[in-house]
């Protein structure tokens, strides 16, 4: 596929910017973990292109997002800042997802129509369907995106959501970020059949796309968004991506992935691949790269500074917002 015509140079650079921003931010978080400053983190590394290509296809000032824990690039493009994320990994009071109540990467942000999610996988899928139903009922043009991993689609809840959406032809898009693993369980022990083929059974369009190629993802997503926006119902997009980090900072992936496999995965690094491609097309130069990296690093440093100095949650707020009336619930 020729890149020309599909996106402008500025748009291509925007994609690259967010991929790189996500990558650098993620790396920083893992450094903080290794330095003992962050007890737990997950990673978006390897999924950046799939997410950036996806986000660009939406009207992010109108559309809704029900993401999962790897979707750092998605939520950055939907509006959150690196500072938001650093506040969250440090579990500070002002972090926007949960005020420090949830683990990091449990995104949720009312400002940007990112619906708060939880840890049990795949529960967000039916939330997205409900948002889509409500949006249509209120005559909004909004489209809803929900995502999850390749293992998570095997939860019953995901199925129920897909069937509901298919039956009512709702404006919702199911993105599956297939990195071939659910923690240690490989695809072959996890999933019967091909993921994108599940769409057929729900009566909507399904497609598999190379998730290391943001443009291929963008193109399929654009089609999907158009279908959704014009009443043609849901789409399932399966993006094949490499998992470049262990499942989480708690995981030791050498117990189940050989060195060779890990090397192969690194060859699919979407940030490097896309950078090369931009360079090949004359859209990016080493000087620009260095300037951008420096800019990002500086902004991350400032954000980290801010986040580190921010207050931890006050234990006295522990009972707040259980109900609207916020009655003090005490441990008696």
């Amino acid at each position, binding site marked *: 596929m020729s890149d020309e015509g599909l996106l402008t140079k500025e748009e291509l650079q925007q994609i690259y910017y967010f991929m790189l921003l996500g990558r650098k931010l993620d790396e920083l978080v893992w450094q903080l973990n290794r330095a003992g400053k962050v007890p737990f983190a997950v990673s978006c590394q390897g999924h950046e292109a799939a997410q950036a290509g996806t986000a660009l296809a939406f009207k992010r000032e109108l559309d809704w997002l029900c993401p999962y824990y790897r979707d750092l690039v998605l939520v950055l493009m939907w509006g959150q800042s690196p500072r938001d994320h650093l506040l969250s990994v440090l579990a500070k009071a002002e972090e926007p997802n949960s005020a420090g109540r949830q683990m990091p990467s449990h995104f949720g942000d009312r400002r940007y129509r990112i619906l708060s999610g939880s840890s049990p996988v795949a529960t967000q899928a039916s939330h997205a369907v*409900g*948002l889509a*139903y409500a949006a249509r009922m209120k005559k909004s043009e909004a489209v809803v995106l929900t995502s999850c991993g390749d293992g998570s689609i095997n939860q019953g809840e995901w199925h129920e959501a897909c069937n*509901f959406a298919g039956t009512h032809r709702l404006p919702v898009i199911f993105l599956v970020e297939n990195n071939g693993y659910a923690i240690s369980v490989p695809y072959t022990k996890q999933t019967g059949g091909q993921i994108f083929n599940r769409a057929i059974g729900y009566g909507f369009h399904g497609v598999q796309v190379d998730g290391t190629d943001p443009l291929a993802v963008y193109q399929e997503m654009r089609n999907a968004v158009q279908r959704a926006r014009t009443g043609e119902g849901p789409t399932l997009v399966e993006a094949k991506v490499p998992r470049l980090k262990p499942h989480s900072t708690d995981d030791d992936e050498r117990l189940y992935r050989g060195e060779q496999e890990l090397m192969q995965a690194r060859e699919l690094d979407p940030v490097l691949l896309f950078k090369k491609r931009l360079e090949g097309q004359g859209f990016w130069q080493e000087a620009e790269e260095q300037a951008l990296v420096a800019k990002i690093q500086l902004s991350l440093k400032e954000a980290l500074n801010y986040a580190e100095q921010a207050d931890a949650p006050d234990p006295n707020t522990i009972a707040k*917002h*259980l*109900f609207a009336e916020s009655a003090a619930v005490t441990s008696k």
Partner: protein
Amino acid sequence: MAKLSYIAAIQQALAEELERDEDVLILGEDVGQLGGVFRVTEGLQAKFGAERVMDTPLAEGAIIGVALGAAAYGLKPIAEIQFADFIFPAINQLISEVARLRYRSFGAWSCPMVVRVPYGGGVHGGLYHSQCIEQFFCGVPGLKVVAPATPQDAYGLLKSAVRAKDPVLFLEHKKCYRLIVDEVVTQCEQLVPIGKAEVKRVGEDITIISYGLAMHEVVKAAELVAEEDISVHLLDLRTLAPLDRQAILDAVAKTGKVLIVHEDNVTGGLGGEIVAIIAEEGFMFLDAPPKRLGGPNLPAMPYSKPLEEGFMLRKEVIAEEIRRLVRA
């Protein structure tokens, strides 16, 4: 003031709320064209359209998850779970999502929805169409659980639930639907508040705390023992979570003896929590051990008639327990 059955009172409340607020919508299995397997939503789809009174696929998890999404968008969903017995596929959504959305987002999001659940036995429902399920939800922070026994309470509590800012599990006893008929003030804005128990009978000798269908059996038992000059003070909880602790303690203080009666299993049923509150906070009021009366510790009601009858609480058994406690 009209005489309404428990089911008609619920239906009326639903119709009024759909009329009042166009953001209210009903979703569930068979609730549309058929009007529900119990006919609670009869006529509502014809009046308010298939978008606002919608037949869903057979998937309780999705019903609740979709309702959450709709609530997050700003609507007021009223979801129906066809039988309480079939709420388990949705319990992950209810406990992990619905009950927790406000708390986990530090108040940024909320989840105002009503989950209507026909529950309870005595209807030849067998092991899977008879269950009480309140024990699974009354200990879940973030959920309110309501279980009216009378048409007026059903009407007033349902309207309160629809207007509530947080999720409410609304338990409708199936056997009450057509059995319980009473005067109901409708079209009123005098809603029954969530969280308030009500003294349904004033007495001196013993306090009984109950709710749902069992409450009516207690009334009958109270009438039986009234002939023997035993007077029963009866508290109808109406809301099961959060419990009206003050009303419970006041009721116990009234007589110093307390019997808790519910249809749910004794072990694990709400009675344990109630006794614990009384023992912890009202110990000085007690002049005899508190006592629970409930279903046997078996997996719900068997189907065959003699077995079902053996399972259900009868007024004679309650009356016998009252006599024992009063005379002790």
